């Protein structure tokens, strides 16, 4: 199945794109998508502990299971205000 990946702030800069598409096996978790990204962008590895994630614009967990067509977002520590 195919998911859309959204990247923001420093992650977007590191990847050189804010939106990607990735193919993952059925019943994959957010973590599986992250593992694919780390393979493509080794610099991502250092960020895992400080990241939040979202699925279809709702906060999620790395163990959250995703479905075909979902939008999976990875969020560095926030700094609004």
């Amino acid at each position, binding site marked *: 199945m195919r998911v859309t990946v*959204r990247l*923001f*702030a*420093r992650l*977007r*800069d590191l990847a050189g794109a804010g939106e990607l598409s990735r193919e993952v096996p059925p019943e994959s978790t957010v973590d599986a998508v992250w593992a694919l990204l780390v393979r493509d962008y080794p610099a991502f590895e250092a960020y895992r502990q*400080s*990241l*939040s994630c*979202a699925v279809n*614009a*709702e*906060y999620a967990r790395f163990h959250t299971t995703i479905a075909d067509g979902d939008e999976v*977002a990875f*969020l*560095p*520590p*926030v*700094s*609004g*205000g």
Partner: protein
Amino acid sequence: MTSPTAITPAVLDLPALVRLVEGPGHGAVVAFLGLVRDHNVGRRVTHLVYEAYDALALKALDRIVHEAADKWPSVRMAVHHRTGRLEIGEASVAIVTASAHRADAFSASRYAIERIKQIVPIWKHEFFEGGDAWIEGATADPDNVEARDHAMRIACA
């Protein structure tokens, strides 16, 4: 029509937010503006670019308004956050609260800005003399009770 919450590239309209929340039963309106400052950790800041995950950021603002309403049921609140390039002195965030008496309006306003810094997916890209840097604050987790309690303690101090 002004909405109580917004993530917008447009200049923030504080009077419109005041009109939205004020009412005949409200003896107090507190207006908070967060402005772009010309210095940060010893750097001379030239401008900021705010990036947001718009869809989730709007939901997070709505969540903050609901959390505040749980604690201060009589307070009306509006929160708008700007995105894109902002120059020194421009407002990045506007929080307006109204209540019968001033204490609740002040507390709810302080609570909202603390929570924005915790859970709203917005990022500052700081440009300063000699470089630029992404500012990274809190790992966003709306379900983190400790963080929420911390914001509440600051608001009620």
